[in-house]
């Protein structure tokens, strides 16, 4: 994450906003909801509270405009720049402008830009955040069509906004009775109603919708699939992604839907062909190809397209050897070698895993190539192998990559 020079921020917890006009692309109620949800994203992880005003000067003035609109940063027509916002300060500070020449929508289709996502990003600026170079962060500068149902703020953005404002106040002890109705705030101008945005108080009673993410250093941690991606290593389990990157320290925690919203969780295998900037994901008898965020058209495809017999209904693991341009696929107690240049399975396969890989006498759950060595994961262990000699070098815990 980043902040603006000198890290400007609001010197108060109660921040006001006002929607000055609307886009004709959406119902006003949908615009109101998108903006309110975007504020809620930030209020749920900070002590900030947002009050909507309907008249007068608010801290954050929100408007739609096209081309030249009174500041030094004219908009550029459809595409390109979608919106911009100013860091906290008086006057134009905090204000957010949306390019009316875009097609705004409440959906996450490819025919328009989702107002909630763009507003959440711009309000990050209004609160003092700059851009993040973490692929998948909300404050990443490039728009990404992401599933907004149950959207969770990525960890990098939480770290950034809490560096400015700290975490939410301790959530109050669970009330034995409902809180008294919200008293109107003293800043409310008499003639206009305000809306105090309900704080999303995480309560112990709120059932988590998806099974909890296992601890990084759980000694029994196993993975569904592992792949490199643009210099990083992604570890998949259920709907969760652990991310190890040379661009930032520590392990980042994300969900598959925050990167590829249309892919169902629970991959069986994944591998990258870095020269093509392409990653392939496998689930059951289908596979997808993605480049960064974008799923390539024409996918999913049946795995039989790669040359598997119809008896193979799913694969367990896959790893691409960047040197030989061969990809090893593992299913059950067998493995195949696929020639990426000829796009065909090599002759003489499948072969038994045990006959070629000493020390790996069982199924492979996930596989990875890193610094020329291969790592085969089975349950909570991983086996480091020199692929030329196919000799086992050492055995480690599967999560040794998480600096446990």
């Amino acid at each position, binding site marked *: 994450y980043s902040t603006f020079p000198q890290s400007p921020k609001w010197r108060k917890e109660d921040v006001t906003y006002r929607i000055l006009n609307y886009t004709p692309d959406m119902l006003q109620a949908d615009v109101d909801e998108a903006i309110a949800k975007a504020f809620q994203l930030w209020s749920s992880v900070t002590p900030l509270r947002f009050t909507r005003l309907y008249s007068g000067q608010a801290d954050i003035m929100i408007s739609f405009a096209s081309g030249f609109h009174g500041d030094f940063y004219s908009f550029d027509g459809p595409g390109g720049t979608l919106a911009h916002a100013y860091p906290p300060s008086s006057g134009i500070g905090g204000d957010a402008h949306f390019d009316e020449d875009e097609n705004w929508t409440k959906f996450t289709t490819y025919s328009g830009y989702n107002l909630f996502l763009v507003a959440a990003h711009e309000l990050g600026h209004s609160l003092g955040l700059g851009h993040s170079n973490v*692929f998948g962060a909300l404050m990443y500068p490039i728009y990404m069509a992401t599933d907004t149902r149950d959207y969770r703020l990525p960890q990098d953005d939480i770290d950034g906004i809490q560096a400015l404002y700290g975490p939410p106040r301790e959530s109050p002890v669970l009330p034995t009775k409902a809180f008294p109705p919200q008293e109107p705030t003293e800043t409310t101008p008499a003639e206009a109603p305000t809306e105090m945005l309900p704080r999303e108080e995480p309560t112990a009673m709120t059932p988590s919708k998806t099974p909890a993410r296992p601890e990084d250093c759980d000694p029994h941690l196993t993975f569904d699939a592992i792949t490199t991606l643009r210099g990083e290593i992604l570890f998949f389990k259920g709907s969760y992604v652990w991310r190890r990157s040379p661009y930032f320290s520590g392990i980042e925690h994300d969900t598959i839907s925050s990167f590829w919203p249309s892919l169902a969780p629970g991959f069986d295998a994944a591998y990258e062909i870095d020269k093509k900037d392409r990653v392939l994901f496998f689930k059951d008898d289908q596979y997808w190809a993605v480049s960064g965020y974008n799923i390539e058209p024409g996918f999913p495809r049946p795995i039989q397209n790669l040359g598997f017999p119809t008896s193979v209904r799913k694969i367990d693991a896959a790893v691409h050897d960047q040197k030989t341009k061969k990809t090893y696929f593992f299913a059950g107690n067998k493995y195949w070698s696929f020639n990426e240049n000829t796009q065909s399975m090599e002759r003489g396969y499948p072969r038994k895993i045990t006959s070629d890989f000493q020390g790996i006498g069982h199924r492979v759950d996930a596989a990875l190539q890193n610094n020329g060595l291969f790592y085969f994961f089975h349950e909570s262990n991983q086996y480091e192998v020199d692929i030329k000699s196919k000799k086992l070098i050492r055995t480690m815990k599967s999560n040794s990559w998480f600096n446990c």
Partner: protein
Amino acid sequence: FPMVSEKEKEDMQFAKKYLENFYDFKEEKNSLFKSKNLNHMAEKVREMQSFFGLEVTGELNRKTLDMMKQPRCGIPDIRA
């Protein structure tokens, strides 16, 4: 010298505008030393490629231009 195609000219203009908007690139309009501007621009291209995790070459290759053409926020990535 090979003729610079119209398309390449357009791409170059687009990239200049992008780098001015988001990477604080300032072209010295009346600079006598064309090469100085090109070096300065290559340095800004490297900054942008590094930000987006692309291969840092300083060249306006296809991937770099594609990334520049993605819809995005109007706030600079790098500020002076």
